[in-house]
């Protein structure tokens, strides 16, 4: 078990810089998720920690040891790959025991550790099978088992759930979370799925173009996004954005000029800034009884989800979504008045996208 420390790390491929000057501290026992869109550098960063990619400049520490030039084999970390990367010619037992065998672990101990991991992951019946005789979910467990038996300093997961169907993904997600609590080992998990990030992480690293946009708890990135990118990336459906400006008497939409009922604190910030981008999550709209209390919209599309209903509408020249109580039974073409809930509004700098606080 160990902390991971990344200092001024740069990764270049030829003239192309994938990660420019990144700093990150992952505490011992912490479950950190790297999340971001495709090409943001999250998998590259994970592979750098694993020792599968060299560092262009900067330092990487695992525990107290600087591991820049240390081979993957000597880093004592375990990794679960997106395609599981099991050894096709070895039985499940041998896949799991291979790393221990390489380290010269006594046979009796190998056996005990493999069986303990197999029991933990419910894969005991498959120990004598080859990977090709297993389903995707079973292979995924074997890949985790192969990592667990080693009792490494840190576990690295590279999008390990992306090849599973939705139901299995949810199940394995919960299992990994439970496992992390049981094993109490540092875990770094890469995903492009913000739900995985939110549900599993102690802290989330939101990455874009190789730079950390925000490093915070799941609640932090959801409730206090550092910028418009994070605000739009975390949350499903995504946050709505409306350009707004201060008219002298109150907030109005830049396009159309309709009044926007802001809470006092947000209004104060907008007054100071003059203009900004207002961010409101779909679940943070309230339905107002009186048209004068909010923004009147026409419903274009209704998506009933059972527990709640999504309504789609156009506002300030762009599409927007609100999550409402299904008891309202909204219908396409209905006119409805929405108002942002006080304390749930976000203002971003119109030029740079940074949050205005």
């Amino acid at each position: 078990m160990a902390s991971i420390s990344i200092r001024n790390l740069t990764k270049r491929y030829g003239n192309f810089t994938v990660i420019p000057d990144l700093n990150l501290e992952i505490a011992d026992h912490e479950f950190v998720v790297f999340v971001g869109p495709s090409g943001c550098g999250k998998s590259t960063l994970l592979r750098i920690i694993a020792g599968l990619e060299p560092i262009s400049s900067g330092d990487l520490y695992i525990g107290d040891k600087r591991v820049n030039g240390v081979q993957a084999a000597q880093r004592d970390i375990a990794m679960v790959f997106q395609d599981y990367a099991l050894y096709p010619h070895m039985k499940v037992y041998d896949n799991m025991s291979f790393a221990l065998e390489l380290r010269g672990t006594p046979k009796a101990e190998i056996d005990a550790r493999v069986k303990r991991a197999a029991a933990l992951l419910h894969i005991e019946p498959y120990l004598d099978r080859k990977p090709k005789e297993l389903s995707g979910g079973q292979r995924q467990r074997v890949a985790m088992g192969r990592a667990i038996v080693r009792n490494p300093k840190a576990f690295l997961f590279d999008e390990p759930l992306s090849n599973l169907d939705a139901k299995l993904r949810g199940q394995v997600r919960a299992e990994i979370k439970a496992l992390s609590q049981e094993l109490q080992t540092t875990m770094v998990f890469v995903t492009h799925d913000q739900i995985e990030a939110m549900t599993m992480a102690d802290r989330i690293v939101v990455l874009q173009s190789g730079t950390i946009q925000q490093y915070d708890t799941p609640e932090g990135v959801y409730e206090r996004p550092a910028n418009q990118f994070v605000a739009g990336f975390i949350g499903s459906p995504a946050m709505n954005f409306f350009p707004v400006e201060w008219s002298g008497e109150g907030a109005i939409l830049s396009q159309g000029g309709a009044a926007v009922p802001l809470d006092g604190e947000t209004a104060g910030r907008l007054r100071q800034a003059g203009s900004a981008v207002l961010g409101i999550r779909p679940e943070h709209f309230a339905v107002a009884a009186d048209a004068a209390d909010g923004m009147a919209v026409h419903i274009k599309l209704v998506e009933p989800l059972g527990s709640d209903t999504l309504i789609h509408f156009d506002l300030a020249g762009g599409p927007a979504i609100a999550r409402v109580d299904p008891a309202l039974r909204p219908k396409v073409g209905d006119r409805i008045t929405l108002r942002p809930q006080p304390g749930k509004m976000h203002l971003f700098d119109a030029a740079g996208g940074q949050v205005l606080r």
Partner: protein
Amino acid sequence: MSDAANTDRWIRWLNTLQLVLAGLLIMAPTVWMVLSSFKPSFEVTAYPPTLIFSPTLENYDELTRTTPFLSYALNSLIVTVGSTALGLLFGIPAAFAVSWTRISWPAILTLAARMAPGTLFLLPWYVMFRQIGMIGSYTALILSHAVITLPIVIWVLLPSFDAIPRSVFEAAQVDGCSVTRILWRIAMPLVASGIAVSAILAFVFSWNYFLFALVLSNGDTKTLIAAAFNFIGEGSTQWGALMAAATLIALPPLVLAALVQRWLVSGLTLGAVKG
């Protein structure tokens, strides 16, 4: 019958016809060679060739009587097995290294060496081996035949190594494997059928290779195929004995290929790993 079914039937017929024609074209010289080896010497060169004749073993008898056939066969075996082993010993790690580093020029270089005419090597080799006193040695023959076997091993194995998902090697790295151990414990078992195919092909090509043995061997180390050349004289050629020798020379590769036919085709057409 519908048009589509008719077309299908025609395509099947044409396919069969093509296969028969190609088979005839490929097999005709072999059949001619085998038949001739059983013909009395006066009938071997008869024109038009006779298809019905009383088979005789006189050509085989002459072959074993006039030449130390078995010792030539042993020479061929030593040179072929030696050069195949040498080809595998260096070709397997070379193919793995090319696949691992994705630097392909060394493989292309070996291919160029294979494609170059053998005579290109002969003079420098002859001079070199003579200077170090190795002309006529098994070592000289095995080393020279490695030029045949090495590119075969590399080029048969390269797609097999390439077909192994990179992440499998990376998993082994993270598990604690050195590159050598990855080759030995992970990559080689996964391309076992490719290794077998490359070994068989290397064996066949080395067994059949004529030129190097003709120049670099001596009376004691002459290989079968170079020895068979003795039946072609300046004045007359002993066609019957030559055909008998050719038939016996062709036997090991044919038997080998027939035994592993299924494996050979699958090994040549794909890499070794799937799910």
